């Protein structure tokens, strides 16, 4: 397959944070690819580096960022080599936008939601206010916010409506890719189902691609075409959703899947004992070995990525 046809290709992406105890290896050599009009879910527990991965892709680095390297190709073009200004003008929000964690509480309380959603359009598309507002209206329609909400303030909207406004804000510049960081974790089930309906419709109607970052395995299946499981700063399994949700490969993915309480099946959920390793001094071998029921001698060495009929897994079992 022509590598340049991929919408997004990430190679050996590294993002460390400097702390007084040493660098935190939040993203440590991440590789993955995403085709146009597809959605990949990054699954992982808190502290596995999944939100840092989102920040690394959008180059939203905090002040204590240390090592930051690797390649991010957007439609074949390496965006890591762009200058800060080029990145801001052409990539951030123009090509890749984001719905941050708890986005519904991230809206400015003293600015009308219509103005907030119009702002990225005016800055990145260079359109005037009237045109931006017509775009806002179009986006509100896509996400299911009533048109007259455009002049309301965030506090006049329910949580679900504010979340839709945040999604509209990410959509307004018609980016190719939207990164969603836990888009529904603070919402009720019915609102959650609603938001996923909205995302599915956007994907179908506008052809947008998504990176969905979440720890909620059950709801992640609502959008996923592909799944990447992240553990201790690394992606340990990468597979298509059909096979992943049916039978994951990596022992961690399997245990994670077994820990999901199910409404429609009578299977007793299991938990994973122990805790993820420190990202300041991760183990030299397999990072999951300490909690893994299947570990054997080989696991003291760091496993490379093995390919199992098209799926990728970082585990010696598949050597």
């Amino acid at each position: 397959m022509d590598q340049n046809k991929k919408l997004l290709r990430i190679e050996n992406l590294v993002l460390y944070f400097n702390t007084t105890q040493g660098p935190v290896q939040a993203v440590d050599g991440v590789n993955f690819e995403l085709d146009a009009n597809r959605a990949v879910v990054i699954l992982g527990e808190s502290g596995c580096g999944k939100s840092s991965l989102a920040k690394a892709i959008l180059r939203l680095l905090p002040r204590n960022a240390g090592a930051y390297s690797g390649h991010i190709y957007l439609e074949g073009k390496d965006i890591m080599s762009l200058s800060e200004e080029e990145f801001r003008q052409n990539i951030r929000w123009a090509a890749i936008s984001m719905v941050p964690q708890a986005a519904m509480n991230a809206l400015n309380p003293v600015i009308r939601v219509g103005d907030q959603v119009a702002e990225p359009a005016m800055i990145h598309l260079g359109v005037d206010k009237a045109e931006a507002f017509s775009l806002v209206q179009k986006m509100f329609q896509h996400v299911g916010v009533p048109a007259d909400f455009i002049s309301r303030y965030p506090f006049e909207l329910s949580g679900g409506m504010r979340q839709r406004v945040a999604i509209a804000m990410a959509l307004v510049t018609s980016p190719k890719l939207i990164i969603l960081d836990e888009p529904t974790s603070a919402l009720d089930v019915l609102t959650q189902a609603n938001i996923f309906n909205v995302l599915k419709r956007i994907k179908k109607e506008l052809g947008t691609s998504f990176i969905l970052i979440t720890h909620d395995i059950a709801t992640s299946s609502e959008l996923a075409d592909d799944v990447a499981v992240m553990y201790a700063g690394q992606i340990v399994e990468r597979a298509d959703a059909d096979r992943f949700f049916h039978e994951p490969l990596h022992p961690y993915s399997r245990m994670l899947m077994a820990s999901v309480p199910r409404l429609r099946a009578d299977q007793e959920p299991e938990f994973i004992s122990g805790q993820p390793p420190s990202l300041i001094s991760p183990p030299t071998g397999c990072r999951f070995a300490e909690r893994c029921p299947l570990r054997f001698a080989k696991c003291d060495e760091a496993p490379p990525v093995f390919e199992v009929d098209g799926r990728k897994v970082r585990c010696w079992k598949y050597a």
Partner: protein
Amino acid sequence: MLTQEQVSLNSSSIEREVLLSVRNLRVWFELRRFGFGIVGHVRAVDGVSFDLHRGEAIAVVGESGCGKSSLMRTILGLHRPTEGQVLFEGKDIHALGRDGMRWYRSQVGYVQQDPYGALPPFMNVERILEEPLLIAGVRDRRERQDRIRRVLEEVKLFPVEDYLGKFPHMLSGGQQQRVVIARAMILNPKLIVADEPVSMLDASVRVEILKLLRSLQERHNLAFLYITHDLSTVKYFSERIFVMYAGRLIEKAPIRSLLEHPLHPYTHALLAATSDPDAENARRFKEVPPGEPPSLVKPPNGCRFHPRCNRMIQGLCEVQEPPEFEPYPAHLTSCWLYKE
């Protein structure tokens, strides 16, 4: 179908002694304009009745704003009911005096949703757990230390010495929640009220904490009121489930019965919206009732769900409030569809 074992479980729960009885409870909050002059009421809890038996676990499921937290806080004695009663072992808890309330608080443990927010950051684990004992008047230092040790072992934080001196920020989310549970357990309560005890935790830890709560419940024959919005966890935990909508319990059922034949259209919607991990999910849209839960200041006439309901009966649902019907044994619902 119910298995024989479940039937006997259900019937035994009916025969068990009532521990907590909530009778026609209403909790209304006054809405004032400029600090004076009442302009209306927020009817957070509006006519709720149920009995909780000794050793029974009940889950209350509902969306945010349905009044489940107000119900819980009233049971804990933090709000005064506008109308109705909360009876614990036959005593009206809002008529207890100062000493009576102290006794009641030792009988009821509370597990908060956000463990980090629930633990004082300036106290170590030992002090956090000693506090309830001091308030309950356990004078003997030896005894206090013994009980702290025992309760930490019960919530599986061992070796105990490693944890006694730790402050909340030094613990992981799961460990913090264990400390919260230990604090709720330390006075040997008969009832535990748990408000979304696992919603802030990671998937892998969530199950661990639920299993811990269940083992404590079984070992000490504790009654449990488990408040949640996550339907997928309730069946591992409770015997009965109550569905709450706009201040009222619209369906009360043994858990199996509810999962096998949900009755109220709102319950149907909640079940349909809950996902299991399945790649098929991405290929279909979910059916979600239109609109949002009603304002509790001026709830709709008749059935409170009727404006969003796709099975509404014209001329009935929007006029008259549905009473409770019992289409299946011990499975009650307030919906006109089940009128005999």
